[in-house]
């Protein structure tokens, strides 16, 4: 299965299991979403369960909060992460706080699906990675899969969770893993072991990172598309790196991170989002606080630049094999 098929399968499985699950968003109904993630759901489950909405992200999320308060389990789709900003007030001031401010009198089980990240020539308004905006907000969870198996299992876990979840889908990986070599033919998920996805129900619990590759020389923390890019670079550089796919940023699997850095003594953090106040800054501080006496080199961050995502220069912006490779070399020299 591709990641798109896996996500579609997760929605399909959960809509069949639980009639409280409803899918809503711009174009998600008849058309099946601009990325086809919701294809076929309206035909199968009817218009009451999967429907198009007006183009107002604050309205979509606000209405979904009301549905959740009623007792449904809405799964709104925001077409691109760049368009979640108009919906931020409903996320930050409402969804994230309803349990707290009402002392669990009302809860808000909501899974907001949102494709993010660049590398598809989307320009500055179809390419952003705003995950750190969400990790800074207490009361919501932020989940990011990197492959079809996890995408399905994590989405099911998110839909079963009683807290609001921002589920960010790396759209560069929808149809195949991406190793950062934009000038080579795109790969498909067909032969990838993580694309062997069970048709039925299964879950990947939130808050558990995955060690993609074990190693003793250095720890790489990554998520989404950057897991694949980092993997390729370690292989090319012949480094015995331990690659950790965080899978969820909140809740964060601190135990796995800590154990790995204590073992390897080196830490590289990779994300596509802009650098300043990005999630890498939080990871770096945590590693420093908890593993300082085990570190043999300064913690390094490889990120996107602090510019908007440029259209024609997107491959210069993207933290690809060269930027990651240089950081790896620097770290290993220490």
């Amino acid at each position, binding site marked *: 299965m591709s990641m798109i098929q896996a996500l579609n399968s997760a929605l399909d499985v959960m809509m069949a299991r639980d009639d409280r699950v409803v899918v809503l968003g711009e174009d998600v109904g008849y058309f099946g979403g601009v990325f086809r993630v919701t294809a076929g759901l309206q035909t199968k489950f009817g218009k009451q369960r999967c429907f198009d909405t007006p183009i107002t992200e*604050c309205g979509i999320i*606000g209405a979904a*909060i009301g549905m959740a308060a*009623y007792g449904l389990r809405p799964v709104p789709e925001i077409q691109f992460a760049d368009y979640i900003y108009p919906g931020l007030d409903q996320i930050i001031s409402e969804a994230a706080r309803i349990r707290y401010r009402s002392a669990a009198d009302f809860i808000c089980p909501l899974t907001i699906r949102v494709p993010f990240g660049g590398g598809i020539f989307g320009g500055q308004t179809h390419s952003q990675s705003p995950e750190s905006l969400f990790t800074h907000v207490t009361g919501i969870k932020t989940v990011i899969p990197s492959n079809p198996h996890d995408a399905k299992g994590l989405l099911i876990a998110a839909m079963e969770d009683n807290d609001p979840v921002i589920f960010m889908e790396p759209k560069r990986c929808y149809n195949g893993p991406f190793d950062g070599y934009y000038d080579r033919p795109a790969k498909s998920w067909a032969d990838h072991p993580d694309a062997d996805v069970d048709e039925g129900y299964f879950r990947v619990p939130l808050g558990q990172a995955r060690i993609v590759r074990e190693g003793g020389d250095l720890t790489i923390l990554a998520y989404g598309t950057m897991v694949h890019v980092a993997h390729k670079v370690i292989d090319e550089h012949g480094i015995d790196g331990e690659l950790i796919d965080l899978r969820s940023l909140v809740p964060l699997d601190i135990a796995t991170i800590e154990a790995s850095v204590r073992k390897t003594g080196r830490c590289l953090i990779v994300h596509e989002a802009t650098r300043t106040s990005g999630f890498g800054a939080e990871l770096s501080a945590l590693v420093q606080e908890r593993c300082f006496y085990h570190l043999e080199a300064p913690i390094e961050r490889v990120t996107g630049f602090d510019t908007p995502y440029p259209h024609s220069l997107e491959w210069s912006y993207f933290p690809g094999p060269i930027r990651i490779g240089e950081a790896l070399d620097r770290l290993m020299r220490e």
Partner: protein
Amino acid sequence: MNGRDNTGGTSGSNKPGLTLHIPEPPFRPGDPVDYSYLEIPRPDAIARPDETAAARSMVDLAYGLIRVLDDDNRAVGSWNPHLDDTTLLRMLRTMALQRAFDDRLFRAQRQGKTSFYMKATGEEAVAIGATFALDREDMCFPSYRQQGILFARDYPIVQMINQIYSNRLDPLFGRQLPIMYSARAYGFFTLSGNLTTQYPQAAGWAMASASKGDSRIAATWCGEGSTSEGDFHNGLTFGAVYNAPCIFNVVNNQYAISSYSGFAGSERTTFAARAIGYGIPGLRVDGNDILAVYAATNWAANRARLNLGPTLLELFTYRAEAHSTSDDPSAYRSAQERQEWPLGDPITRLKRHCIDKGIWDIARQEAMDLEVAQEVQAAQKEAEQNGILGHGLHQPDQTMFQDVYEEMPWHLREQSEQAIRERALKWPE
């Protein structure tokens, strides 16, 4: 510098210069008051249409003023809901209870027992009239001036005061500003401090109810100032698009803190008329006439229950007192405005109606006023046993970390332990 002139202006043009219009309220402190510009039609100037009528057939309702009580305190016209005597007297008592409560808790704030309070003086009919017309099971998404819903649904007033004091029995564990109640069992959605966020939420709740074949409807309220927020329009868009069984109320009390309603657009049209662009009925209602509020809400609720979708109600009223305990209206509006407000006071109007009907008298009114004052006083005493704000009898520190998530994650557990350690150092037993 790029050398461009960024100051605007008329440079190089010989066309007449434009001017910017800044709305200005009709009276400022010291000004005499003249309400002759207000059009106050006789009751039944616009007859009650059938609930099933098409929205476009009743555009007039958005520009008129639905009234039931006439100048002689009689209930007249096709909007007269013909309520029985018991209901009338229950409404009267509920409004009196709220007024006594507001007065007492406002004073409690002045005495330093809590940080903040908001009265709804002069607007009691808005929430109480509506709640009497709704079913007990309907879900309300209020703003901060609809505490009347709780009084009308017999929510325990001791518990309201516990919340206002943030004391150890505050059901919300001292997490919310005073008056930001939450009462799911009473059909009262948890209050937000962010204006109009409840509008699309109410629409979503109503959509969910409709999609499940339920019979319950939703109602939501915001101030006229807040109609400028995007979420006001988001809520109406969703309500209209999906034909959601939802009543959207705009409480036009003339003021948004110190800004008059002109800054929300009232110079050009009414707030009820916002409905017309959405193709839903918009009814402008005398908000100080509880029978009119009841009748209009009942009409909108019937329409929603017939699956004919949402209605927008503008409750035309006047905020008789300050915006909140942090506000001083004498600094920005004429002292005469309140006294001369032509639509009177909702409690006085219903009281006179009941007296004229022969079911009530001044002596009984005085006795009732005393009784509700004593009820509030007793509740306040009881609540004070559980503590007032800042006097130690509050929640254990770990409650601060509960309910952020369903289960406490590691970082909150660590911070909770830190808070407990610090508390032991700050206040040794």
